[in-house]
């Protein structure tokens, strides 16, 4: 099979799985997850083959794999839709395929496959556990098991479409599919008020970004007449775009388009100020969180903006904006993360801040670094989320055991000492955490983050550099805080004592991802690291070749290296120091209300946007316009019509129609009927005779008219 | 052309020259010759029919461990003539209230339907009535005339027994026609033509009984049913409806029915031979001359006739509902399965070597036969379990 065909085929299995499950295998859990995981595996296989062929191909950047077909006929040309794999796409495809497969497998265990049906579970609520034949409390299987797999299959389809597409239109299609799926999945337990609201919030917030993105796409199409990367990134096209001025902020067309697209990213990748949906999205099942926050959706935003880098980088203003937003988000989210107690929320905020890193890197023009961090972050963040899911799962065991459902299995202050209960989870989580906080030389996170810092430093963006360094420090700090609270020390709640390790379907993905969390970084070791001359960084060579002009490798600088070393180790150390014997939230010095409440951003939004729109809808639209104006008019019409009607009835209907026409007709009909009745003799042959006579007459007439005359 | 290798045309040619010599118009001469041929064939069959009476009586006697006719002439060979004389001098009764015309027409039609069949039997490569390209259907058509004659006889003789017999017979005929047609289509498929001559020519190398034994068997059963002979002789079940449709007939009219029945049996023996036993082929012996071929065919027909008699005098009569059920639920499906299978195999194996072809066909039939037997066994076991209860059934199964 040619690579092009293969690429076309990659996204298909998940969507097929989606329809299969929805339509046919909905009843059968085993079949459903077999179909879904099988589909994910097929896609993974195709992705791997494509990836291997891609890295085997010299200067893939100049001649990417890809083919396209005509889709929508526009006036004189065709709107083409196609697939394309260039170095950037290849690496993204690589980690997407891996993480998706891992998450699928993990979901089997997470949804308690093979456990008995819940005693009082009902669809739309998390499983409450069941009592097995021995009377023990055991976890119960998710009531909407099949539906879950259907949704994540569709989600995977969306992501593959997005990664493989060679133009912005299909990318946007996949983008929106994922938007829908995230809505469905965050609200998966739709019987929970919070889940419902979170789903709506996520949908709405991302929609804001998507609208702007669509604007950008439309502008781009009207400006260049095409949406495929290949056409857009032609030098003359770019030059044209860069030279066209626009009325807004004196931006060039390129800058404006870039800005609009970037707003889309801000929505999708949860950058300030549209980040608020991401923490709430934690209401969904944990594989969903991992799906949305690590592997697919948020990465999609960054992927898109990296993809558009040649366009964006044309306008310094836009770049500045991007750099600013990214940097601010990074530090901002990191500070919030420090004060969170919910294990998943911490990770959510850290995701936001890490994405901030990437955006910032892009803003300072560190193309490769951004892509690199995207990849490594996907791996170790997926690992962390799945790990946290594993922890929660273990805690739920404990909760089931004690039967005290008031205990929140996600609150880190109920945990502690889990390293003995669930070792695999502990070690893998540790690896993930270290990778996140950039533990030097060993973990993937270090290399990517270090490269970002180095780029920021060497490109002379000192503010960015310092801010990111602080953010990195905080990252390491809250990561260590999390690890300490969760795994180290002694159990702070009975539930934690009775937690135990999760099934292999959950731990196996953890181990695999842990492997990636370490090794994924080694492909990107800078050439002159520590001044010793290694062979050039493979990742840099490979991904850098995507651009028209290969960005030169960043020179090694002791400052950047030392900084990242310092912040990582220092953060970890302080984190451990502060929290090694904190027993309760009260003893936590950093539970500052401002941070804890996320700078009251939700409240501000609530006050500034939601309240007014509610008020507008309720008072202006509903009461004044709708009730007063429109209903008033309608009522008037009603009354008028009523009056006319009564008049008509009295003087026309009753008198004229009924008396004269109505009864008259009836009489006439009766009379005719009475006189025609004898013909209805019930004798077949008579009927036949009559019909025959008529037939003869007609035929004779026709014959006379047609032939004789 | 000499007499030995083409007798019919030889004589025809001679006659033709003779008649034309008398100054007769060509077409008239041709017509007369045709008529002569017909008369000759018919009278030949009738005379043979007389002989059949003797055969039947002898064979039945042997089956029943008797001597049979042995007074009139050597081995009682002249017994049939005595019978004929008896029939002729009997009083010819037409029952009161009978429908005269129809009543007298029926026996004639009955015999006619049989004699018609001989028009398409290829007695030898050069001796045959007509080579009809729809021969197989022609057989059924003639058979339907027989049906007609029976119902006419029964209705016109104004007799309830007769009517019941006729109803039974007609029901049987109409239902058993279906497997018969289906099985007659199999030689048609194999030979690629409905014409009897073609079918016989197709059996030069291998008789169709080898290629389609099941079809041959089915055809035989259906034929017996068509003949209304035991075990299917419900039309004249003496113990129930005295003699069925010809209860009122006496004298020569009855004789015609009787002769018709015998000749019918022999005729179907002949068709069995033509369709499945290779007609006049007998390992190249037929090449000696047409007359030899005729003898061979008659020998085979006689064999078929003998088989029919054998069954008749061995198996006991079935009940009408059993019989119809047997047809609709067993014989017809089997016939159709065999038909489809044969057609399929024939198409698949046509271009293979003849050995493979023959072996394949034979194997298919054997396999199908085995499957059918298995199915029947399953049914019978279920039946037994229903009637006798499980235990005995299992015991029987062990035996």
């Amino acid at each position, binding site marked *: 099979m040619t690579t092009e065909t293969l690429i076309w085929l990659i996204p298909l299995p998940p969507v097929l799985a989606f329809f299969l499950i929805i339509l046919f295998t909905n009843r059968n859990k085993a079949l459903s997850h077999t179909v879904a995981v099988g589909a994910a595996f097929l896609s993974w296989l195709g992705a791997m083959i494509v990836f291997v062929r891609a890295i085997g191909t010299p200067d893939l950047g100049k001649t990417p794999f890809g083919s396209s077909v005509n889709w929508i006929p526009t006036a004189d040309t065709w709107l083409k839709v196609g697939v394309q794999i260039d170095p950037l796409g290849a690496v993204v495809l690589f980690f997407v395929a891996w993480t998706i497969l891992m998450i699928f497998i993990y979901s089997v265990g997470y949804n308690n496959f093979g456990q008995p049906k819940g005693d009082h579970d009902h669809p739309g609520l998390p499983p409450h556990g069941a009592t097995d034949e021995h009377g023990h409390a055991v976890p119960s299987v998710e009531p909407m098991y099949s539906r879950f797999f259907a949704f994540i299959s569709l989600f995977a389809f969306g992501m593959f479409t997005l990664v493989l597409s060679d133009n912005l239109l299909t990318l946007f299609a996949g983008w929106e599919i994922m938007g829908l799926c995230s809505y469905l999945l965050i609200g998966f337990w739709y019987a929970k008020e919070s889940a419902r609201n979170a789903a709506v919030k996520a949908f709405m917030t991302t929609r804001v970004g998507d609208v702007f993105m669509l604007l950008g796409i439309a502008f781009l199409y009207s400006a260049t007449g095409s949406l495929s990367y290949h056409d857009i990134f032609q030098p003359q096209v770019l030059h044209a775009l860069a030279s066209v001025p626009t009325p807004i902020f004196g931006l060039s067309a390129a800058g404006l388009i870039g800005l609009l697209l970037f707003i889309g990213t801000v929505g999708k990748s949860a950058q300030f100020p549209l980040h608020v949906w991401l923490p709430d999205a934690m209401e969904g099942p944990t594989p969903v969180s991992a799906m949305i926050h690590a592997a697919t959706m948020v990465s999609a935003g960054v992927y898109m903006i990296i993809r558009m880098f040649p366009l964006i980088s044309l306008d310094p203003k836009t770049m500045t904006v991007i750099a600013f937003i990214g940097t601010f988000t990074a530090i901002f989210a990191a500070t919030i993360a420090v004060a969170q107690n919910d294990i998943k929320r911490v990770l959510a905020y850290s995701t936001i801040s890490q994405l901030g890193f990437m955006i910032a890197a892009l803003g300072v023009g560190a193309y490769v670094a951004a892509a690199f961090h995207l990849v490594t972050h996907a791996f170790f963040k997926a690992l962390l989320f799945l790990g946290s899911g594993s922890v929660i799962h273990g805690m739920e065991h404990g909760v089931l055991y004690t039967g005290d459902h008031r205990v929140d299995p996600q609150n880190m202050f109920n945990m502690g000492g889990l390293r003995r209960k669930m070792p695999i989870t502990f070690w893998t989580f540790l690896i993930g955490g270290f990778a996140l906080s950039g533990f030097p030389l060993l973990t993937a996170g270090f290399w990517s983050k270090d490269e970002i810092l180095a780029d920021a430093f060497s490109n002379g963006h000192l503010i960015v550099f310092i801010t990111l360094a602080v953010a990195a420090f905080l990252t390491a700090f809250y990561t260590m805080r999390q690890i300490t609270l969760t795994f180290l020390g002694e159990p702070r709640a009975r539930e934690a004592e009775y937690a135990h390790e999760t099934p292999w379907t959950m731990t196996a993905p953890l181990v695999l991802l842990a492997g990636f969390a370490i090794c994924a970084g080694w492909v990107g070791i800078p050439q002159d690291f520590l001044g010793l001359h290694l062979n050039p960084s493979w990742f840099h060579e490979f991904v850098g070749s995507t651009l028209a002009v290969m960005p030169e490798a960043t020179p090694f600088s002791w400052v950047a290296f030392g900084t990242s070393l310092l912040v990582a180790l220092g953060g970890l150390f302080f984190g451990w120091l502060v929290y090694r014997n904190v027993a309760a939230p009260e003893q936590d010095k950093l539970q500052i209300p401002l941070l804890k409440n996320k700078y009251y951003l939700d409240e501000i939004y609530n006050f500034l946007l939601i309240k007014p729109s509610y008020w507008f809808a309720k008072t202006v639209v509903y009461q004044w316009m709708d009730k007063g104006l429109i209903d008033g008019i309608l009522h008037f019409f009603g009354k008028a019509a009523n009056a006319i009607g009564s008049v008509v009835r009295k003087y026309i209907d009753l008198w004229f129609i009924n008396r004269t026409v109505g009864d008259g007709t009836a009489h006439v009909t009766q009379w005719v009927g009475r006189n025609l009745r004898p013909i209805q003799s019930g004798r077949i*042959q008579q009927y036949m*005779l009559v019909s*025959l*006579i008529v037939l*003869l007459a007609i*035929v*004779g007439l026709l*014959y006379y008219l047609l*032939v004789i005359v | 052309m000499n007499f030995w290798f083409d007798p019919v045309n030889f004589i025809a040619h001679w006659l033709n020259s003779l008649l034309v010599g008398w100054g007769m118009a060509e*077409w008239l001469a041709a017509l007369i010759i045709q008529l002569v041929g017909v008369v000759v064939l018919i009278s030949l069959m009738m005379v043979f029919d007389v002989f059949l009476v003797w055969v039947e009586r002898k064979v039945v006697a042997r089956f029943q461990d008797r001597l049979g006719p042995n007074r009139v002439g050597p081995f009682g060979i002249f017994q049939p003539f005595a019978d004929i004389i008896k029939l002729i001098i009997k009083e010819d009764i037409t029952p009161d*209230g009978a*429908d005269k015309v*129809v009543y007298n027409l029926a026996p004639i039609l009955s015999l006619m339907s049989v004699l018609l069949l001989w028009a398409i039997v290829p007695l030898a490569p050069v001796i045959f009535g007509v080579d*009809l*390209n*729809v021969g197989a*259907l*022609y057989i*059924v*058509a003639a*058979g*339907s*005339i027989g*049906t*007609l004659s029976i*119902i*006419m006889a029964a*209705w016109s003789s*104004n007799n309830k027994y007769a*009517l019941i017999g006729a*109803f039974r017979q*007609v029901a049987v005929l*109409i239902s058993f*026609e279906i497997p018969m047609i289906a099985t007659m289509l199999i030689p048609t498929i194999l030979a690629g033509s*409905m014409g009897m001559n073609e079918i016989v020519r197709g059996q030069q190398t291998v008789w169709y009984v080898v290629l389609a034994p099941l079809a041959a068997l089915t055809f035989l059963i259906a034929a017996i049913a068509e003949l209304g002979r035991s075990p299917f002789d419900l039309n004249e079940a003496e113990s129930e409806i005295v003699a069925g449709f010809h209860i009122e007939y006496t004298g020569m009219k009855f004789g015609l029915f009787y002769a018709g029945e015998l000749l019918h049996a022999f005729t179907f023996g002949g068709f069995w031979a033509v369709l499945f036993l290779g007609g006049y082929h007998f390992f190249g012996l037929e090449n000696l001359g047409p007359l030899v071929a005729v003898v061979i065919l008659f020998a085979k027909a006689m064999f078929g006739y003998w088989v029919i008699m054998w069954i008749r005098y061995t198996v006991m009569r079935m009940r009408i509902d059993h019989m119809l059920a047997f047809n609709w639920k067993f014989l017809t499906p089997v016939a159709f399965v065999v038909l489809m299978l044969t057609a399929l195999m024939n198409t698949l194996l046509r271009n293979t070597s003849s050995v493979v072809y023959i072996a394949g066909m034979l194997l298919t039939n054997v396999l199908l036969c085995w499957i059918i037997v298995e199915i029947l066994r399953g049914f019978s076991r279920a039946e037994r379990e229903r009637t006798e209860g499980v235990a005995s059934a299992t015991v029987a199964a062990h035996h």
Partner: protein
Amino acid sequence: MTAMQIFFLITGLVILGSALMVVTTRNLIHAALWLIVTLFGVAVLYAILNASFLAVVQVVVYIGAIAILFIFAVMLTRKEMRDRGPQLNKGWWLNAIIALLTFGGLFWMLQSWNGFSKTAADFPSGYDAVGQLGRALISPDAFVLPFEVASVLLLAALVGAVYIAFNRK
């Protein structure tokens, strides 16, 4: 006037005569039998027209099945053997006029058709009409669909007949 024409005339006369008997005779069984004669005549016509297959099928289907069915039906729907009373409706003369009119009209139209009295080309010897017919019946670009529809119709009729005539008691 060739032999064939004479033959045709005889057949035609037999057909029409027996047909008249079918519609006029008092005894219904006789009517059915006369119908059989008519059908035979039609079969002969087919033979004259070189449609040997149709001729035989006519005998098989009509005489072997349909006519028999008629006789059955007649026997099953009567109490005594003879049919008493008038067999025709009172207004039969009117019907006769209508029939005559129909015939007249048909004849009138036909004779004004220019292809009315054309004669056929000689039937090519060795032309396999039956084979042609078979191929036409089952070849997808010819008549396989009507053929299948007809078979479905037959099945439906079979089931329907059994259901209707089934004696529920």
